[in-house]
């Protein structure tokens, strides 16, 4: 059956995990036909019936019978409606759209993931892919920063990753009191401590744009070339497939040429306020 890219397919909520006070992760299964399998880094348009659509990164691919997973922060009407859905309720899904993290072209490289806040969600499929194909990559590190300990996503999975002996997982929070035993400080503090070899490393960075700007400075001063630095951009989107122009970013549409973009392609406009 051909999937019409304009038409959302009905999906049923299997489970809702309340990650933080305003962030929920939804496991979804198709009611009938399913969207094609998303690549790590791609997003879908989620449709809260009667409310509207929002672009949401896939945070877990439907591989080997697993559900399609999205992690959503309740910040507007649509995302509020989506995070209020309960198991058994339905929503519309169309996609997947956009570019993917370079997990294939980074084959044999060392991999450095830098995630800030909710930015771990779009990176999670890439982390899972790399860990599932561990022998294809060199050293693997994940640097994750959040606002506070209570804002951390996927605690159980982070703990599992930390147990693996050939992956470095470093977590820090911006603010904490003494009950927190982990690192305190911004995620960029972890970059010089990560000890990666810039000549053989591909970095994938995702988080709020200011966090990504600071991260790029940190990676640049550590010697990582822009050609091996990838970001996932967030822009207001409507169609999700490069037709409406809502997400124009210089000569590109973020929904089509992004959301994952190689930094050397956008470095000249990344910090231009008017764009």
């Amino acid at each position, binding site marked *: 059956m051909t999937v019409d890219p304009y038409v959302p397919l009905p999906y049923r909520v299997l489970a809702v995990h309340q990650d933080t006070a305003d962030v929920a992760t939804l496991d979804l299964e198709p009611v009938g036909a399913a969207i094609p399998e998303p690549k790590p880094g791609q997003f879908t348009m989620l449709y809260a019936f009667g409310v509207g659509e929002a672009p949401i990164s896939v945070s877990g691919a439907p591989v080997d019978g697993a559900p399609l997973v999205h992690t959503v922060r309740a910040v507007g009407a649509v995302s509020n409606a989506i995070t209020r859905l309960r198991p058994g309720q339905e929503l519309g899904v169309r996609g997947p759209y956009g570019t993917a993290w370079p997990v294939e072209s980074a084959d044999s490289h060392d991999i450095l993931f830098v995630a800030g806040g909710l930015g771990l969600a779009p990176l999670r499929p890439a982390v899972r892919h790399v860990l599932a194909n561990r022998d294809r990559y060199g050293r693997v590190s994940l640097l994750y920063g959040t606002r506070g300990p209570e*804002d951390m996503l996927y605690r159980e999975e982070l703990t599992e990753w930390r147990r693996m002996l050939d992956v470095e997982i470093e977590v820090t929070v911006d603010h904490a*009191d003494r009950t927190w035993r982990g690192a*305190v400080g911004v995620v960029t503090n972890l970059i010089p401590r990560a000890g990666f070899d810039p000549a053989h490393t591909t970095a994938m960075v995702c988080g709020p744009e*200011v966090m990504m700007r600071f991260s790029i400075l940190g990676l640049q001063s550590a010697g990582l070339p822009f050609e091996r630095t990838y970001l996932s951009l967030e822009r207001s989107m409507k169609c999700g497939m490069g037709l409406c122009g809502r997400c124009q970013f210089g000569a590109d549409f973020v929904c089509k040429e992004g959301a994952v973009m190689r930094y050397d392609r956008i470095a000249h406009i990344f910090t231009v306020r008017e764009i």
Partner: protein
Amino acid sequence: METLERIVLEQKIFADLDPEVGTLITGCARNHHFEPGAYLFHEGDEAREFFLVRHGEVALEITSPGRRTLILNTVADGDIVGASWLVQPYRWNSDARARTHVRALGFDAACLRDKCEADPLVGYAMMKRFMPLMVSRLQAAHMQLLDVYGRPEGA
């Protein structure tokens, strides 16, 4: 036997340091060991000595009446603890507490400042090492202040 000078020059921040300058700054250094929970310094105290963590973890903390102690930052192996020794009035603006067993190098601040003043080569070598550190800490402070993971405006 491992000499203090070798330990000092092994630290990342002193990489490629002119050996003569290394000898001069080692003259201001000594070894320290802190038990977990011990304070390296307290807010308001004179910044007589700053530290370079060789091993362990240190929390920089602020306490104010009626509020829980807040951790501003944690530092670990290879990091410098404290910058207030560099600028007047040479007073610490936070507490520094060992979270683990900490082995550190302590540098006598007045001794080092005097040597920087007396020999511009020493002063310039120190400036080249401490200025990037100060800039990166300023950037980190900016990022913390911006509260980048907070709820978007209008949400």
